[in-house]
């Protein structure tokens, strides 16, 4: 399981990075933490001719209570979990194992868009805005819903980079809950749900049950079956998790 050959660039500014993406487009892939990309390369399921390592691009780093740079790692967030909306802090320990979180980035998770991933669900739940940029279109902002097109499919053009994700300030008194079911700790969830109650308004999301995370306040959502769980299981357990988080958040 060794990657096919590729060239490697390590830009030190955002402009340089965007320039590379502009020139190489479909032939190149941005490299963030590598926790999702490197296995694909090793299995030769992805064969870019150029890897653009974003590690040294300062504009992608750092985070605050309402905005996380694409290259912030899950471990960095975990270390300052108290500064973030508590529903994020609750979700973080479920993301793989701590060794994966040491490298895996928020931007990487969102750009990879695994339907069982926690970050896409959180982005949808928190009504996040994703800032992307390319040389071709400049900087633009997408809602989570606009960003997520399908399983493993985002609205990102081949020449576009995800810069950051942000959400409204987490107000005092806001309530929340998060729950997921996985076969073993750290596995991708078989089903998951999360809920916020902000200024009297309830917002609930299910994830890992269908092709994308979905708003599910009315209890209705799309399900798919695969090797790990049938559609029927996901519908039932998704519903139970939804009930649980909505009950917990209401308390």
């Amino acid at each position: 399981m060794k990657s096919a050959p590729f060239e490697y660039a390590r830009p030190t500014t955002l402009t340089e990075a965007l320039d590379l993406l502009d020139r190489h487009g479909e032939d190149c892939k941005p490299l963030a933490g590598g926790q999702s990309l490197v296995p694909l390369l090793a299995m030769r399921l992805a064969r870019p001719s150029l890897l653009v390592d974003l590690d040294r691009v300062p504009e992608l780093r750092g985070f605050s209570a309402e905005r996380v740079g694409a290259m912030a790692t899950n471990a960095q967030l975990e270390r300052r979990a108290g500064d973030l909306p508590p529903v994020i802090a609750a979700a973080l320990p479920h993301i793989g194992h701590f060794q994966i979180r040491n490298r895996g980035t928020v931007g990487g998770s969102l750009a990879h868009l695994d339907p069982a991933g926690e970050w896409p669900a959180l982005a949808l739940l928190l009504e996040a805005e994703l800032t992307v940029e390319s040389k071709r279109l400049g900087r633009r902002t997408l809602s989570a819903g606009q960003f997520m097109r399908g399983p493993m499919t985002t609205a990102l053009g081949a020449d576009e980079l995800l810069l950051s994700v942000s959400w409204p300030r987490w107000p005092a008194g806001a309530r929340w809950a998060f729950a997921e079911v996985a076969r073993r700790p750290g596995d991708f969830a078989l089903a998951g749900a999360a809920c916020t109650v902000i200024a009297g308004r309830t917002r609930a999301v299910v994830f890992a049950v269908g092709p994308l995370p979905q708003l599910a306040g009315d209890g209705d959502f799309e399900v798919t079956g695969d090797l790990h769980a049938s559609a029927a299981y996901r519908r039932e357990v998704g519903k139970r998790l939804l009930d649980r988080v909505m009950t917990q958040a209401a308390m």
Partner: protein
Amino acid sequence: MEQSLRVKVNGQAVKREVPPRLTLADFLRDRLRLTGTHLGCEHGVCGACTVLLDGDAVRACLLLAVQADGREVTTVEGMGEPGRLTPLQRAFLEHGAFQCGFCTPGFLATGEALLRSGRRLSRAELPDLLAGNLCRCTGYGPIVDAILEAAGSR
């Protein structure tokens, strides 16, 4: 085209030209002959390749060697010295925390990271923290015992 790589491995500065696709694991094993870091899956699940990167436990199979440029890597070979084992290594020996030994370097790296983190390790929580390392031989009990002992002796 090969890339220049400058990295500190087990305290020693190393400079090499490497192809970008060479993983850190293969760099350590094949270029530096540090074969203690083992390959069990090459897709980041089994943890046999766990090493410390600037003190953080990471999968060497999911890092390109070039990504370690300017950083410090610690492998199992960098633990202890000739004639002296670390408390964690000694605890592994005492508790029979390995049988075939293939997963052991990965567990030692994870264990070292946990011990250095200063976080309180309990019998109830430690197994969850070890979920990123697979062992097929021991049933894990002795590994948990060994790490707890090393934590207690700190």
